[in-house]
């Protein structure tokens, strides 16, 4: 089975915009999309809503979204809003 993975670096300064863009670009043809969160130090309510939307779209299109390099503070926030089960995480 082939896995098509797409890697996207997330711009921490324009987090919401970057997430919206990632959402729009989700393509059913790709099995997996990896978002590089290495530069994201803090996540605000707007970005969290964008993450919720992204998770919904990914579910609809059966695309696995992998978050890479999520720091523990952001990870805890995602945990608090029950978003962790909806993404995969890579160190």
């Amino acid at each position, binding site marked *: 089975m082939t896995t098509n993975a797409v890697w996207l670096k997330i711009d921490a300064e324009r987090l919401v915009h970057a997430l919206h863009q990632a959402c729009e670009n989700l393509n059913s043809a790709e099995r997996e999309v990896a978002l590089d969160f290495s530069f994201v130090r803090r*996540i605000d*309510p707007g970005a969290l809503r964008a993450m919720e939307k992204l998770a919904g779209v990914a579910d609809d299109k059966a695309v696995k979204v992998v978050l890479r390099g999520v720091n523990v503070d*952001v990870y805890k*926030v*995602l945990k*608090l*809003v029950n978003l962790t089960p909806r993404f995969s995480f890579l160190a």
Partner: protein
Amino acid sequence: MTVLAKLEENKSMSENFSGPSEERIAYLEGLVGQARIAAAAFTQYTQEDVDRIVKAMVLAGLEQAQYLAELAIKETRLGVLEDKALKNMVATEFIYNYVKDKRTVGVIREFPERGLVEVAEPIGVIFSLTPITNPTSTVLFKCIMAIKTRNAVIFSPHPNAWHCCHEAVRIMYEAALKHGAPEGVFACLESHTLQDNAYLMHHKDVGLIDATGGPSAVKAAYSSGKPALGVGPGNTPVYLEKTADLDTAVVDIITSKTFDNGTICASEQTVVIDDEIYDLVLKNFADLGAHICNEKETKLLGRTVIDPETGFMQPMAVGQKATDIARMIGLSVKPNTKLLIAPIRGVGREHPLSVEKLFPVLSVYRAKSVDEALKVCVDVNHAGGLGHTAVIFSNNDEIIRKFGEMMNAGRIIVNSPGSVGALGGIYNDMVPTFSFGCGTGGGNSTTDNVNVYHYLNIKRMSRRTPAHMWLRIPNHIYFNLNAVENLRQFASRSTVIVTSSLLEQIGHVDIVRRYLPQQTRVHVEVIPDAEPEVKVVMQGVEALKLYKADQIIALGGGAVLDAAKIMKLKYESPEADLQELAAPFLDIRKRVVQFPTEKINPARLIAISTTSGTGSEVTPFAVLSDKERGRKVTLADYSLTPDVAIIDPQFVMSMPKGLTADTGIDCLTHAMEAAVSLYASPYSDPNAMQAIQLVFKYLPIAYEHPQNEEARCMMHNAACIAAIAFANVSVGVNHALAHAFGARFGVPHGRANGLMLPHVIAYNASVPSKFMPSPNQRGYGAHKKYAAIADMLGLGGDTVEEKVKNLVAATEQLLDQVAIPRSIAELGISKEEFERAMPDLVRSAFEDPSGRTNPRMTLMSEMVELFWSAYQGRGLAKVASAS
């Protein structure tokens, strides 16, 4: 998630009430979802972030204090504009003053000496009900607390104070948002119903309900099953005692009761006044603008401002001026009347004005005595005011203290106004608040003035703190041949020598006498050379009293030395209860029963051991024989340690072979157990190791050649050195088993130890089925300690396992050399008899404190196995893998 799914998710809620419409649920879910996201994002904020936001909010609140007061008055028609504005300022400025330097993010407090750090964890989403009586000030207060603690709040204001509260939330939210707070951190229900409240109270994403308001709101909060801060009504009794500063008291009470027209639930309700000052106090009230009701007027008030059906205050009177209330009920008062004062003769339904009245009507009661006054205050306190607030004006500290003991109130205000005093930070140093915890008496979870710490989960990070250790030994230890000569340096008027008849007969007592200063009067107390019984001890104590002894010389084996220790204890502290002092304990530093420290007959105890085994001359232990229960009772306390120990081998030269063997093996067991004790330390290890080395080298020689002076001397030293180790780190399960077995079957202690020793070494060297909790244990190391002993003895072996096996074998060989029986069976104890004794043996061994420091926790089932191994005998000990 669909609305129906949400409903399903909150099943417990739907069982209890008919829920809101689907559309309404969608709205409520939106609020919770937004608050949840805000709270989650908020967890990333630093202390500096929240402090910056809080300051901005406080300034915004202060700026709008007057505006919000006007809104509140206009909407609720309760209270006094000026007071409402003042409350808004207190709720911002005073709260800020309290919280500004408080750490509420990350590490909030550190206790380095306890290895303890407190870390703040926000709650998340708080659902907050706010009252009609203090609407905007409560909102301001709760907003500041929430931001300071990184929580999100959904407000549900009282329906008759919605607009002003909504505006207060808006002002706080905008200021917070402008300075970086997460979007959605505050929300206010756009109108609300009881169903809305119930839905949110049961919502899984709401972490805490903070309900300030009437009894029904508080009850609903606590009934929800959620953690809740429910803060409800009061009924504040005031005792105006005759020693009080009356001018201050009267002004304070008027100030407080008329503040915001009495809407603060901590305000005074019934003032109980001492008979002697009653008339004067009422005159003072009247002079300052109070109307004193006559009997008819009091009855009229009671009928009108209190609902005769429910017994509670009428809402129409709440927060109204005294003159307006008077006008409403047709009472004629002066136009500047501040307060209506109604004398009452009791508390309860037949005295309607004895309940809470959130308006300027104050009951007064004339008390004939302090006792009567306190009783009436208790009655008022119990008539709806449990846990809330009580006030006393007095300069009699004893009465103030008694009042404090009698009142069930979270706030007991002394010589200051109730309402403004209870708010905290104005008249006293209590924590400023707008939410009064009423404890269990008021159905609340706290008696505190609710503050930021109630909006936090405080996590405690506790570092491992190694138990403090010690090395405690007698002040003087003299050793080697003729060490007894050192007795000369201890002055004494009256010395009692405690010894056995045998030692007197063979001249040992004469040797001791020879070295006592000439002026010393000497009495010899001869006791049986057996484990001391209470009767023997008490006879000895009588002798000590008779001869007014200031020095006791214990000359003998372990039994005599132990007897002398207990005699000294009872002589110095006659009230010492030996049974109580023998109570079990886990840690000597935390024991329940303490040994007496007061000594009415202080005496020096000099211990001269005539055997080389127990080491009792340097230990804090004494064993009593409890014949009734067929077991030994171990007393342990450092106050039992002799003051002087003399280790002179001349007293052991004539020890028979059997005693040499038994005591020598006892010494070896002490050292072996001290070496692997949970409390073993760098201070005890050298002693334990040295003693083991000496025993392996010199015990066979002393046994075979009793007159070998060097061997006797070294074994005598070994016993003392091993005892120095175990006196400080205790022994282990070997001793627990031996105590139980020896007492039951009358087997000498050392021999009983020897029967168990190889089996216990093998047992301790294997991987424990259960570890003994001990902060001093850094990994399991008993097997390594045994291997080190094997190395020291030159027993060979390449691995830890081999070395342990060699140590067991060498121990068995030593036991054989000194003719210790190979098995319990060899003692002539039948299998059946042993089996019958087993339950008692195990119970007794388990209760024995010796086992507490064993490196592995010995289960009762394992004790059974160990007993049976010892029954079957040596050569069977198996070393399990310890790696």
